[in-house]
């Protein structure tokens, strides 16, 4: 069983998860406000790109948050396994 600092691993998992939540917050009603500008730009060339870019950003923020969330889960699982195997001594 590898030597793993359980406390630091769990702390890192929590911090990574917190950052992934930040990404979700940025996407969900946060700073992506492109679509809200579309009505003011009706009939402009920029208008019909706004919705597409808005969605693309939100999807990617969600992608990133999901993947970082998975990393956090992976760190927690690693800590669980090491703790179970060593009785918490690692």
């Amino acid at each position, binding site marked *: 069983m*590898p*030597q*793993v*600092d*359980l406390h*630091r*691993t769990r*702390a*890192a*998992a929590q*911090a*990574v998860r917190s*950052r992934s939540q*930040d*990404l979700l917050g*940025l*996407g*969900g*009603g*946060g*700073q*992506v*406000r*492109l*679509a*809200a*500008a579309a009505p*003011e*730009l*009706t*009939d*402009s*060339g*920029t*208008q*019909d*790109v*706004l*919705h*597409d*870019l808005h*969605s*693309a*950003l*939100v999807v*990617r923020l*969600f*992608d*990133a948050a*999901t*993947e*970082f*969330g*998975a*990393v956090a*889960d*992976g*760190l927690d*699982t*690693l800590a669980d396994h090491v703790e179970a195997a060593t009785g918490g001594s690692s």
Partner: protein
Amino acid sequence: MSVEVKAWMRRAGGSVADAATGMEVLASSLGEVEDGMLAHLGDAGSAMGWEGALTARADTVTGANRPLLRRLAEAAQSTGTALSTLASALAEHGPAVTRLEGQIQALEADPPRTMMNDTVGQVEVVDWPELTRQRAVLEAELADHVSALADADRACRAVLVAAEADVMGLTLPGTSPDWTRSLVPPDLWGLFERRGVADTGHERRIARQIRPGMSPAELRELLRAIPVERLAAFLARHPDATTILAGDHQPLAGDDPVLGGLYAAMGGQQCFRYGVPPAESVGAIADYWAGLSEQDRTRLRLLYPAFVGNLDGVAIEDRALANRMLIRDALLAERLWEAAINAGPNSAEVRAATMETLRDRWWWNPISDWSAGRTIDLLQSDTGLIVSDVGMGHPDRELARSRSRIALYESLLFDPPVAPHGGTPLGADHRVVLVFDPRGDGMFAEWHGGLDAPQVGIFVPGTMTDMANIGRYNDTFRSIAEVHADTAMITWMGTDLPDAVAADARLTQYSVEGGHRLTSFVEGMAFGPDQTSTIVGHSAGGAIAGFADFYGVNVDRIFHVASAGTGPGVDHADKYPPTGIGGTLREVERYSMTAPGDSIEVAQDAGRLSWAIPDDWGHGYDPDTTPGFIRLETGRFADGTRLEGFESHSHVVQPGTDAWNNIVGVIRGGQVTPYREEFRNSIWGWRRGWRNVYDDPDYPGTDPVPLTEAGP
């Protein structure tokens, strides 16, 4: 005027500037997230014995190897800058455009004049040379502003198109994103792989075999090699795999004995009726599911998300987790659909092309233009009252509908629930979506509020409700759970609803299928003895509630709101079964209300006209006059205006009305406004007979009473 000015050129650019600010903040925030991630991933590496250090952004990394988070931030920054420039151009030129247009109009309304000699002497006439000169000066100035705005628009568009390509290009179709891998050096990534924090080498080899077009069964065979406890993280890292699984709605058991056992619990796969298991088998499904190990539940939920997420009897938390996978996948698909519509012709262009075709075809008909235009206008109208799908394009409407669905999906993924769900496998910040199927008009159900709330309402909407507009009802009924912590609300659109009033809302099949589906769904909720459950069915949803009642749905109260009918042949509440699914004794309280003049009254009479209409038309009798129902008063708006007429059909489910207060009152067992009539003699202006007390505009209003005292 010879200079073409578009409406957006007259705007001040406030929302554009706001969007620009948002993008710049996003770029900055992503930089902070990147810094934070670097530090945390470095800490994680150190905790595992890695001896390197990651504490700040490695600005030396350039080119395609830049971390994906940074590339995302760069796209946001360039978008923000471009929009900011456009907003500045609007702020500078927009007011000038408006001013100059006004000056030109004023000039034309009051042109310069001059005196000239005529046979009768001197007369005042328009000084055309001077008018032309002054107009040319103004138009030249206007053209400069318009040109500057057009240039700014073109430049902004070019940047945004490039930014979108960059953002979508962060993950190529059919591949997996590498947000983490792009952040850390290879030796740390290797450590993560060896310790199983990221894809192990074995998992990476599996990921390489996933390809578009692969069947769900083939993919599941591949995924067998991944331990269940690593499967969720693997699917999170490989959304293309989720897409394949999300499309499998009724998987074959094949050689999966646990799934086979689930089918066996419901009596075999062939027992599916109306797309759901029979209500009688839902208890057995629940028992089977509860008896599975956590590992088996997790595996089924991850490998069969479309099946498990919508299967009545599966635990609420597992359904919600499965459906979260489906929503993420639907968001991606909807985004692509939206882009496809957006790239095509708009409704005006479709109309013009159709007109041209008809003109060619009806060249001999002098009124063809007029009649064709009228026909196209009708077919492109938004009412949906007469026809629902005519096969002629209305891209603007489809675009708006697609964007509504995107807004709903984003809300379901990102916005917090009414109440956090701590202590369950579900994340505290996860919404509880109990039905999700984006195909066709879509199916959807969401639980709002505490899972153990003592009062639970189930709202069933009516005709023309689909995935593009269910969000409105979802928000409205969610508000009940937000205001009352002891009450949970479910918005249930777990069936296909009629698309148009005249075309198909009359058809009994919608109520039959919806009634069965609702009955199974309620069984799946397994409300406890301490919970009071109420179905509120509106319009066609009322008929579905009536049919579910006829099939023995296990709830405590059913409220027909502007309902299309009581259920098949139910002209007295005695005709509903005394026992429900599973043989439980039913003691259902039934309520109804319809505003005067609501057009649903036509449908409510179908039962009485059964001799005159086809067998597959109608939904039963009028609940307002059927014995065994307690009728409530739809009353007035808060401003005293009465709910009545055609529009009242929607107003009865609108907060701020007596009707809405009744809905809340019935669900919560609180106060309601009873329906009252009084006998009127032949007073002037009134016909003799029993009249609704609210027919008198001076009537002060009936005092609400406790629900238990609302009966006659």
